[in-house]
């Protein structure tokens, strides 16, 4: 079979820049899950690590049974069981997080603040459960242990700490959890080998062949809930009102017109990068089935070089438009993952081939050095500290490399080298090639990487080709449609409903929106006159 080349929209997050402000979570929620049935759902959530995550302890696959496992013969099977086993246990999903593992969503009885009768006591807005409507005691949320809040009570429940502790035979002092902390924003991984999709009895979850975005067909989902068990990241949620599975859509309506996702667009730290990578769909299964220690490399090998003439020819033969190939060549995501090798996949050991990668944070190391009174940017100190601080490195390795500390150390050393090298450049003390040599990079590459990580502008961080131009009219609302305001099709249903498919996306035409914004910006630039720089 001839090799095929397909495109996948992927994301990289630079964890060093995440300040844990939850803006991404909030804007995502406002855009997608601010409605009945999804009150507890966060397509994007930000977890503090160490911490339990959301839903609680989702990484404990012995319990939740998500993802794939490699069979002794080298094949792959769903950890939760084969097809027949799934069908036989379909009447009550055997392993499924309940609301108590997420949290019971609530609102406040605000009305009481204004309608309470006059009295001596201040009226209060009591918390009311959004599930039962009753008064409720708030005991947990999607980020209850934010910034290590209450870590004294919850730290033992972090599955990764638990594992590390067991491995180090209780040698780790408990106060080290306080010694480092970082934030981990999570969305759906839009995996190349998605176990949610493989778990879906109805076949309602699909991967778009154009951009690799994983979606749930709301019309075909029958609510069997196997995907929730199947996803090891627990990023598929059950809408308890519609009875359907829902998940992060990678903001596909925005991506289709070249706009970044809402979480990326609104990220205060500008830590998210979006771009496409090229891959061969027929090579995915083999790459996902390699032994654990080869997974990272296998995943890198899966991403094809967009400058390779053979790859370009194959992509063209498969009908990929030239602007997509150019976008793949400019992709910041490809650069960070494969060229500079500083981004790592989250939990590669789940074998789903995730497509949201992370640049591990150097800051726990830097912070610690600074706290101890060292010069946190001197290369010697940093390199030494990365080696000495086994615990954060091991923790990061459990998250990003299935426990392989060597890869994480290499990445952290690159980041540390970049820090020291660029300090030299900025302070005018010279370009220290010993630093670049130490991590196997050229000074040019180092400065390129610095630009991409530190000063990349909007258009460098988000390189998203529009959906195929020949189909572009499909994205517009047709002017002659009966569904326009006041038209007979405006409302969702007549006495017999409306044929076709209800789409849970209320869209403006994003292309038009973008044009309007560009015009407005051009106007403003014109008004502010020449000589002033535009932001």
């Amino acid at each position, binding site marked *: 079979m001839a090799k095929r080349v397909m495109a996948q929209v992927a994301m990289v997050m630079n964890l060093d820049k995440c300040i844990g402000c939850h803006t991404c979570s909030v804007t995502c929620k406002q855009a997608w899950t601010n409605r009945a049935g999804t009150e507890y759902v966060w397509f994007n959530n930000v977890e503090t690590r160490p911490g339990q995550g959301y839903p609680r302890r989702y990484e404990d696959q012995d319990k939740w049974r998500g993802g794939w496992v490699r069979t002794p013969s080298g094949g792959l099977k769903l950890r939760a069981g084969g097809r027949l086993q799934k069908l036989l246990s379909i009447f009550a999903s055997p392993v499924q997080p309940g609301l108590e593992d997420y949290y019971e969503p609530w609102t406040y009885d605000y009305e009481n603040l204004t309608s309470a009768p006059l009295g001596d006591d201040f009226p209060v807005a009591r918390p009311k459960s959004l599930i039962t409507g009753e008064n409720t005691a708030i005991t947990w949320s999607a980020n209850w242990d934010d910034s290590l809040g209450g870590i004294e009570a919850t730290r033992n429940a972090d599955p990764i700490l638990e594992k590390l502790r067991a491995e180090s035979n209780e040698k780790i002092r408990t106060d080290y959890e306080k010694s480092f902390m970082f934030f981990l924003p999570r969305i759906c991984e839009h995996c190349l080998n998605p176990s949610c999709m493989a778990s879906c009895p109805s076949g309602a979850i699909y991967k*778009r062949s154009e951009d690799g975005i994983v979606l749930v067909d709301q019309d075909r989902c029958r609510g069997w809930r196997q995907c929730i068990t199947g996803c090891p990241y627990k990023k598929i949620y059950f809408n308890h009102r519609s009875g359907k599975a829902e998940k992060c859509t990678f903001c596909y309506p925005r991506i289709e017109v070249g706009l970044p996702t809402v979480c990326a667009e609104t990220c205060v730290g500008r830590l998210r990068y979006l771009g496409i990578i090229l891959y061969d769909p027929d090579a995915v299964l083999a790459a996902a089935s390699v032994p654990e220690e080869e997974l990272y490399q296998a995943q890198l090998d899966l991403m094809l070089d967009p400058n390779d003439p053979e790859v370009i020819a194959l992509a063209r033969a498969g009908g990929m438009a030239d602007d997509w190939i150019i976008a793949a060549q400019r992709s910041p995501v490809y650069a960070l993952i494969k060229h500079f090798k500083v981004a790592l996949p989250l939990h590669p050991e789940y074998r789903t081939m995730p497509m949201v990668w992370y640049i591990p944070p150097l800051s726990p190391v830097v912070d610690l050095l600074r706290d101890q009174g060292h010069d946190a940017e001197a290369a010697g100190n940093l390199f030494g500290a990365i080696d000495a601080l086994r615990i954060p490195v091991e923790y990061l390795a459990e998250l990003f490399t299935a426990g392989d500390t060597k890869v994480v150390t290499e990445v952290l050393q690159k980041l540390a080298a970049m820090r020291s090298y660029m300090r030299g450049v900025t302070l005018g003390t010279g370009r220290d090639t010993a630093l670049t040599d130490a991590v196997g990079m050229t000074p040019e590459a180092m400065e390129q990487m610095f630009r991409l990580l530190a000063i990349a502008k909007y258009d460098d961080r988000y390189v998203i080709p529009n959906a195929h131009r020949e189909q572009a009219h499909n994205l517009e609302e047709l002017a002659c*449609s009966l569904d326009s305001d006041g038209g007979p099709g405006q409302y969702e249903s007549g006495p017999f409903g409306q044929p076709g498919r209800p789409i849970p996306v209320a869209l403006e035409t994003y292309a038009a929106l973008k044009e309007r914004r560009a015009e407005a910006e051009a106007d403003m630039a014109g008004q502010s006159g020449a000589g002033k720089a535009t932001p």
Partner: protein
Amino acid sequence: MDILLWGVLPYLVALTLIAGLAWRYRYDQFGWTTRSSQLYESKMLKIGSPLFHYGLFVVLGGHLLGLLIPKDWTDRVITQETYHAIALTAGTIAGVACLAGIAMLIYRRRTTGAVFLATTKNDKLMYVVLVAALVFGIIATLTGGTYPDGTEHNYRETVSIWFRSLMVFQPNVHAMAESTLQFKVHILIGLALIALIPFSRLVHAFTVPLHYVFRPYVIYRSRDSHTPTPSQARVRGWDPVGTTDKDKGQR
């Protein structure tokens, strides 16, 4: 009266089922779901639901055997007494398992606040008819074997003959009219239940995902071609926070 009940009604019900399913399939794909409440409560569901469903499979299988296979076929293999003994034992066990399962599920539905709140009027009606069908089915099995005057009645010589005659559009109304009251009641409730299927959550039974066994794990699909996206109209699934699960219309 007999003609109406046993000659016309079954066809009306069949028509309702087929037309109802077609209508629902065309117009209400989004509403076609099991509407699971496992998110709210899992412990009782994990026992009750499999008990009910597996019991139901045996019960349905028993119905098919008893109704479709003519008596003189089985007579060649086993005696009527053996057949009856097997059917009675298996049927009663399955029926009781089924009933115990649904009793548990209804208890759960009533006592778990969140599950009760998500219960619609449609669900309640469905539960009444379903339980009635089960209960009268068991009653018919246990007591429908004799006429009030004490003579023996074999449903396979009345009900089954009538059922098969329906299949070939030559309704043998007389055969059914010969049956006992218990069976008649059970059949009428059963017909009501069948008519209810397309309009209740029972519809999920018609999308049992057997194709899962054969399909590839990873599904690639091309981006949907144009679908009109109403920018102003209310879209299903987008009710504001605070709308309760059983609020009408928007499932």
